[in-house]
């Protein structure tokens, strides 16, 4: 049985029309007009137990809305979902004890109290036996290097520390399904890496099913063998990451600042020039050759600063639209 199976899942938000002006505001007091915003449209996919899937899309594509339906926060406008054998929006206790939803910029930690208090609270809420609780906390504190953060009021933690505590408190009850919404949002590169490692570790150790949204390709390239890409609420691609990367993101992006203006002609040997402004350039370099070319750049050009990035999701989406043979490629 798949861990998640959704068919024709659709969500439209009804929002009151807001027209500018006092007169229109007065009119809307008497009769409100609603406008339907389609957030998710006819989405179909299924995810097997133990899979780690990247759920990708530009901002506003409908990722969060989908996760909210999968966790039972939102009733869909139409369509069905089966998550761990339950209909999520019925909010059965047995279902709620088996999953967790973590949102990057939401907190369930009690702001004024040390994180350990929320940990204890979750022990009570999820009715975790003492022995299991102690073992899990010990393991998580170790793995996420949380020891120093546990007894400080949450409001005094850094974003990265808070995010780690957030993840830890969300998996105290060892959920079989983890829904992660932008878990690396706003974190620095080192912290992003730690979070990713942890997610992978959790997936491996407990064979947990993980669905992870991101608009950051890095997250997915490191973690997810399979990706689901959506755009404007519709499925665009569901299949192996390798295929997406080979076809639509064969390059990495080197962003470089120089101490003095460099010649574009010479730069062209490093990679395709996507942007050029004299002392600043963005270059596309084939994935396999990033290291030698970056080394070349560093030794032969007056580099002040350099970063290597994944192709932005928006770019992948654009290419999928313009190049894909069929919009929803078969899984593979």
């Amino acid at each position, binding site marked *: 049985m798949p861990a998640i199976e959704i068919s024709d899942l659709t969500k439209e938000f009804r929002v*009151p029309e807001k027209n500018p002006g006092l007169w229109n505001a007065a009119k809307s007091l008497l009769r409100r007009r609603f406008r339907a915003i389609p957030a998710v449209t006819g989405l179909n996919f299924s995810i097997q137990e133990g899979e780690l899937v990247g759920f990708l899309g530009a901002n506003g594509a409908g990722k969060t809305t989908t996760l909210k339906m999968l966790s039972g926060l*939102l*009733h869909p406008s139409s369509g069905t979902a089966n998550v761990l054998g339950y209909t999520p929006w019925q909010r059965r206790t047995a279902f709620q004890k088996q999953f967790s939803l973590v949102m990057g910029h*939401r907190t369930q930690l009690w702001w004024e109290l040390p994180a350990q*208090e929320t940990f204890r609270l979750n022990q*009570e809420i999820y009715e975790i036996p003492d022995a299991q609780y102690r073992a899990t906390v010990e393991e998580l504190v170790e793995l996420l290097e949380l020891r120093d953060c546990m007894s400080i009021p949450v409001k005094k933690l850094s974003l990265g520390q808070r995010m780690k505590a957030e993840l830890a408190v969300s998996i105290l009850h060892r959920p079989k399904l983890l829904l992660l919404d932008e878990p690396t949002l706003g974190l620095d590169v080192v912290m992003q890496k730690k979070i990713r490692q942890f997610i992978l570790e959790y997936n491996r150790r407990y064979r947990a099913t993980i669905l992870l949204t991101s608009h950051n390709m890095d997250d997915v390239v490191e973690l997810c063998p399979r990706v689901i890409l959506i755009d404007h609420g519709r499925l665009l691609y569901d299949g192996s990451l390798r295929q997406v990367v080979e076809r639509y993101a064969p390059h990495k992006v080197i962003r470089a600042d120089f101490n003095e203006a460099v010649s574009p002609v010479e730069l062209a040997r490093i990679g395709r020039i996507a942007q050029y402004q004299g002392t600043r350039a963005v270059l596309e370099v084939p994935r396999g050759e990033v290291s030698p070319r970056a080394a070349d750049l560093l030794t032969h050009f007056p580099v002040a600063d350099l970063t290597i990035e994944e192709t932005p999701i928006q770019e992948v989406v654009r290419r999928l639209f313009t190049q894909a043979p069929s919009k929803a490629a078969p899984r593979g």
Partner: protein
Amino acid sequence: MSKYLYVYTLSLQNVLQRRASLLMDRVGGIATLLALYFFWSSIFKDSATVAGYPKAQMLTYVLMMSLLRSLVFTGRGWEVVGEISSGRLSNYLIRPIRYLGYCLSLDLAQKTVHCAAAVFEISILILVLGAPFHIPQSPQTWVLFPIIATFSTLLFFLLEFLVASLAFWTSESGGPLFCFDLLVQFLAGAFFPLDVLPRALQAALYMTPFPYLVFFPIDVYLERAPTEMALKVLATQGAWLVVVGMAAATVWRRGLRNYAAEGG
């Protein structure tokens, strides 16, 4: 059950930790209490009874009012409105805990601290100002009053929860609760006993749940009416609890269907 107990203890910690805000609340309460106390004292300079209340009863009404204010009128309404409209409600909806029970646990913690403070303040007033204070004589009152006070507490909690739930629909969310807060203490008799009002107004008010929040409970405490009256108060409170409870449950269920889980 133990999860709600734990929420209660956590919340107790939280209330005690926010000493400044606790202190402000208490100072506000004491100011109201003193104002009412001296107002009624000065009125009793010229006459032995006012609107059928001898001095000791009226001053007891004021002092008991102060205690019930801490017990009955500390709600979670604004927090509920905030959590609905900001989408923080989502935190509870995805976990195996009942939001109503969670709120009640938080509220009981507030009530515990505030009631302890109120008892302390009232004792000081009685000792320092030599305020006359009515102590119930009949054992029935000692049995019935605590039950009635508990029912009042639950009734206010549910009423406020019901009004706060309207935030699922009103985009300027606080409106209904603001009106409720403005009127409820007046209608409940938190500033003066309701039987000083004209008869027609009284009769109309008695058709609503509000007088059952504090006016009738204090009436029972003062033993102004026979025991049957106390039983009638209790029964009416029970009926209102059922009605308001069912209304709150229905509104909440419908609201959740409307909930947009904003944010995140």
